[in-house]
């Protein structure tokens, strides 16, 4: 199974993850572990490949968001400092 574990930043996606967790647990799609500042979503516990296309799409999207968020953080801070530091 591809991408058996997804790690997602916890800080800004709590509600997304809670929604995802509820959706996932209800469908038995994955196991979610608390890693401190991250959630890990373990897809390997599944007996069958995920059939829920919507869930797969959202997992993929959440994962990308977390990855981008890490890259955006510094630039966002710089822009905000530039915008409001001038006042």
């Amino acid at each position, binding site marked *: 199974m591809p991408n058996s574990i997804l790690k997602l930043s916890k800080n*800004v*996606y709590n*509600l997304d993850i809670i929604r995802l967790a509820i959706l996932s647990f209800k469908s038995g799609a994955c196991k979610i572990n608390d890693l401190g500042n991250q959630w890990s979503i373990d897809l390997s516990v599944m007996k069958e490949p995920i059939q829920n296309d919507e869930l797969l799409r959202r997992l993929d999207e959440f994962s990308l968001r977390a990855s*981008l*968020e890490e890259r955006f953080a510094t*630039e966002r801070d710089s822009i905000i400092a530039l*915008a409001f530091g001038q006042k």
Partner: protein
Amino acid sequence: MTIQDYATSDNSSLYKLMPFAFESLPDGDFFLSGLAGDHAFLNKKDFNDLVSYGLTPDRKAFIELESKKLITTGSKAARMMTASGLLSRKAFTFSGPRLHIVVITRGCNCHCDYCHASSFSPGEVAPQMTIEVAAATARTIMSSPSREITVEFQGGEPSLAWETIRFMVDYIRLLNVKAGKSISFVLCTNLLFLNQGMIKYIAKRGIEISTSLDGPADLHDLHRHIPSGSAHDLFMENLKLLESKTSKKASLLLTVTCGNLRELRRVIDHYIECDRYGIFIRALNPFGRAVIDKNLGYTVEEFTDAYIDALEYILGINRSGREFREFMITLFLKRIYSSFDDGFVDLKFPAGAGLSVLLYDFNGDVYPSDEARMMAAVGDTRLKIGNVQLMSGEEIRSSPIIKQILATSIPSLIPGCTSCPYAPYCGVDPIKIYSETGEFTQFAETGECQKNRTILRWLFNKIRNADDQLKHILLGWTA
């Protein structure tokens, strides 16, 4: 390979990603928005290439994204322009409260089932603002650092305390001789108590009128009751009289209840018959009597379905040659196409409550918004800031309550909002969230959020697929 796999391959030699939020659309394409509100639509291939640094300068998507500051080729210009756009959008956070709502009296001559102000009904003895409190309120208002001040008289029905209104208008004008601010006055009235003398004064002082019209007589009178006769008929009579004497159009506000929810097309037709150029389709406020009477409301889905149907109807009217706007969509369009503050305090990041608006109750108590006062009227006074006779304007504006509202309404700190591509055009109302959830917390998943996201998705879909005529109509609304 998933889009995450693409994103992990970092080859930033050609361009750098600027911060953006995104969501995938039902057709597989992607919607992106930047910090300063620039937006773009990408097909899946372009999006995957974007996040894996695979776009090349000869691609149309590259050119579009660079022009919209969603990628940069390394110059500082994109960062500077994004910062400048962000500052323009948030300039209101530095200017001080601009809108000052004054509750002149809690008494009313009309009994509305959905009254969110919890007013006293006709015949009941209602508290009214004294001249001493009015004077202290005027001085507090004029102490605001904002160069533009709007004083909005509310109630109850404020015209029942006409002499107090006259006093405040004249006293504020006197104080402004020295202050030199740009001042405007708004009277929120049901028009039912207006007489020739009042109308003459309204015309003389250029006072704006904001009033309510819920549709033709059968719909308007459904929830708006006067002791005898039709509230609608009396309203129409006084509206004609007022507008003939002042030569200015009053602003009409529609409140949507379950009574007119499925009749919005008929309501729109009535507004056109009344020679209006637009309508503000407002969902019911979850305060006061509106909360007590469960028969007034509807679900978010019921509202958005009816609202979007009404919007399609309005666009059809515009396509047939008559200009007619919906004002909430107009507001969103302005936020999509402009970086400037629109002054609408109910939907902002950070929240306008306390920062852009203050409310003064009849007894001088100050609240961060109308909704906070409405909560106090039904017993929850936790959001009371203080009193104009006991605190200076500076003390009021630096209240810990206002700081708390500010801290709970910054989008990058609100789960859901921080990753929402519609956040640059949206806002949050922590007080409404408090009224819905019972908690004063950073929580984005409210009915308001669901409603705004649905509407913004609809609007961006329209923008994306607009033919020339529709583009012309939508851009025309922003003028």
